[in-house]
């Protein structure tokens, strides 16, 4: 059975800290791994990773994929209270339909 596992389930840090969120996966076919940020409503897209070892970066957020070890990490440096959210990892397991398998998410709380 295909699955995506995220850790930790929740994390509380102080502003300015650096955090690393983990996502491991087991799927029969792999096409891409996606990270989403979910605040109060809909998930919003952060990164899509398809190749190992190539870091994607957007401001204080960065992510990298290791297809050999079947995991990805999402780093957030100099955290701010606005980074507080649930971070979802999802894997596109191939096929013609772009179906995504989601992990349960990591709840990040950044305290002032």
């Amino acid at each position, binding site marked *: 059975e295909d699955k995506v596992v995220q850790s930790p389930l929740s994390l509380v840090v102080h502003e300015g800290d650096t955090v690393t969120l983990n996502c491991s996966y087991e799927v029969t076919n792999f096409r891409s791994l996606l990270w989403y940020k979910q605040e109060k*409503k*809909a*998930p919003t*897209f952060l990164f899509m990773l398809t190749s190992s070892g190539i870091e994607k970066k957007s401001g204080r957020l960065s992510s990298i994929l290791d297809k050999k070890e079947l995991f990805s990490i999402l780093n957030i440096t100099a955290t701010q209270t606005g980074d507080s959210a649930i971070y*979802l990892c999802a894997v596109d397991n191939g096929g013609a339909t*772009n179906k*995504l398998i989601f992990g349960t998410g990591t709840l990040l709380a950044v305290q002032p």
Partner: protein
Amino acid sequence: NAGVTQTPKFRILKIGQSMTLQCTQDMNHNYMYWYRQDPGMGLKLIYYSVGAGITDKGEVPNGYNVSRSTTEDFPLRLELAAPSQTSVYFCASSMTSGGVGTQYFGPGTRLLVL
């Protein structure tokens, strides 16, 4: 360009009632999806569609039905609401046909079945 829109935002149903959750996208995306998200859980795929007239079951389809008569609209129907269907429902769409694509999400519908 409104993206993916969903109505209603919030609804309370009694057990056994029926309702339709509406989803519309104006990005001309072929692929559309319905997910449910229970507290502390990830998103579970209910149904998806790869184009007008074509739908298929996802991971948790029981108790739901869908139709796709146009590219823009993908309504989700609950025929006999049950407390287990209390959840937040997200509709999403994506563009690519078989390639790597990003799903864009609507704002969600929060459903409470009492």
